[in-house]
């Protein structure tokens, strides 16, 4: 579930970074911002697949995945409101967790 959760965070981070209003997440790097929404949607689908294909029963995994969306979405929202640095650091941690979980 760790890889699915980390990928879900990265997906939401990508979707947020692709919005002009939230470009602070990628500190105005235009190529990254352009690429972010597509990556976000792909990662979202991947995280759902990873969750459902995990060791546990898929209905439980689906419920957990749905429940984690507001947790990570809320984290990004608060970070965007009070300082984007926390969301960026969390994205780095999520990359490590996703790689570790997939390995």
């Amino acid at each position, binding site marked *: 579930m760790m890889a699915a959760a980390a990928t879900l965070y990265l997906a939401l981070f990508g979707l947020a970074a692709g919005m002009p209003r939230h470009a602070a997440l990628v500190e105005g790097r235009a190529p990254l911002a352009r690429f972010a929404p597509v990556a976000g949607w792909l990662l979202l689908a991947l995280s759902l697949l990873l969750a459902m294909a995990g060791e546990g029963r898929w209905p439980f995994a689906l*419920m957990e995945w749905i*429940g984690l969306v507001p947790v990570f979405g809320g984290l990004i929202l608060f970070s965007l409101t009070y300082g984007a640095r926390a969301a960026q650091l969390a994205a780095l941690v999520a990359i490590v967790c996703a790689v570790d979980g997939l390995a």
Partner: protein
Amino acid sequence: MGGGAAGMSMIRAGVRQTMAWLHGWAGLFLGWVLFVMCLAGTLSVFKPEIGRWMRPEATARADAVPALVAATEWLRHDAAKSHGWYLTAPDARMNTVDATYDPGTGWVVRALDPATGRPVARETIGGEFFYRLHFELQLPYPWGRLLASAAAMAMLVALITGIIAHRRIFRDFFTFRPAKGQRSWLDGHNALGVLSLPFHLMITFTGLVTLASLTMPWGIVANYGQDMATMFQEFTPGSVDREETHRAAPLAPVAPMLAEAVRRFGGAPIGRVSVNHPGDSSSTVTVFRSDAGQLAYAPGEISFDGATGRVLADWTEQRPALKAYGVVYGLHMGRFAPGLMRWLYFLGGTMLTLAIASGLVLWIAKRREKAPLSLGNRIVERLNAGVIAGTPVAFMAYFWANRLLPLGLAGRADAEVSAALWTGAAALAAGLALPPRLSWPVLLGAGALACAGAPLLDDGVALFLDAVARGDGAIVGGDLMMLASALLLGGCARLTLRRKQERRPARAPLMERAA
């Protein structure tokens, strides 16, 4: 073509406006009832843990079978004349046996010690209060359930119209602009609603389905008329209830029946046990499999002849329609949810509760910025303070009563509930009587103090330290949650006080804009 596109655009805008209007009114209609329902339902996620916090003396633990045997032995002597005993088995989350029986004074709900089978010292219904309040609203049957059902329907309408009215549902996913008055309330309301939207839709729809037999009884009436007994019999064929014969026959030992049930369940734990007409030759013992390990509610049951211990019926639900209903029901109850998912249920419930509260406040914030509030909206504003800030105070009064009332007090469990209801009524009266600039900080401050004080009552520090030593997560977690709630409510009280001080200078630019 251009005219056609413009026309469609106008129609879309018109539809959105209509949906926004309906969203507002559907949310306001029964919005306060919904707030209480959602807060109580959210707390019900931790119903067993609340029960353990409220019975700190009951520390004994036992497996389900010996605990149920001990409970039936005690009931055999002390509630022999009860028409039935309805028992919920202890599990990893709850150490006592929850029993409903009639000791000769009317039906009572008691927690029985798993080792002795006797009622525990502190008479309380624990988390059952929040669970019942969530869908019965402390009103007599069927009025509470009907009101809860109407409120849930209003909630579903508000959710669907909110989605249609919301033009930029994804753009607002991550947006919150603080300290901007109405804009901040709208951002907060949108974020709370949108971030957890799948959960909100699921919990509202499944909640409506759980009460559907009451609100849409036509299918049942067409097939069974007034014969509800036959309907229940067909719905749960493994549950046998026979006509009382009034011929005495002692109840056979329960332990072999429970052991046989566990064997037939394939080792799955027991969830509930019903004993109908104990001591009568018609007595039956029905054992229900625990549904804690799966989504669907009530997956199967086995009935025994109470006098002989012979198996009368053995049923595992396989009918697709009832399995589907069981899944929908189970999703709402969330009893299957293990640790992390339980907290996600709690988070989803909290977000829905806050979305309702922010929507109610937004109703006033929107109108206050346009013109002076009408009499109706001034009443709404005061009701908002009384209900939104008053309900936590009422709920905390329940916990305070639990710690402060003497253990031997007759009708103690009812007195705890009365304390909550009277405090709620007083908070509502304060909200209506005081101007909102006073009632919000006063009620939120009272809630914060009540939360901070509850863990200290009745030698609470010693209880906490003892719970830490024993590794009792329910008491430790309960105390910590109350302290966290105290900080949150205290912070809100501080914000409302600060807003009161800032309100006057903030009006100037608006007036300039109007000019």
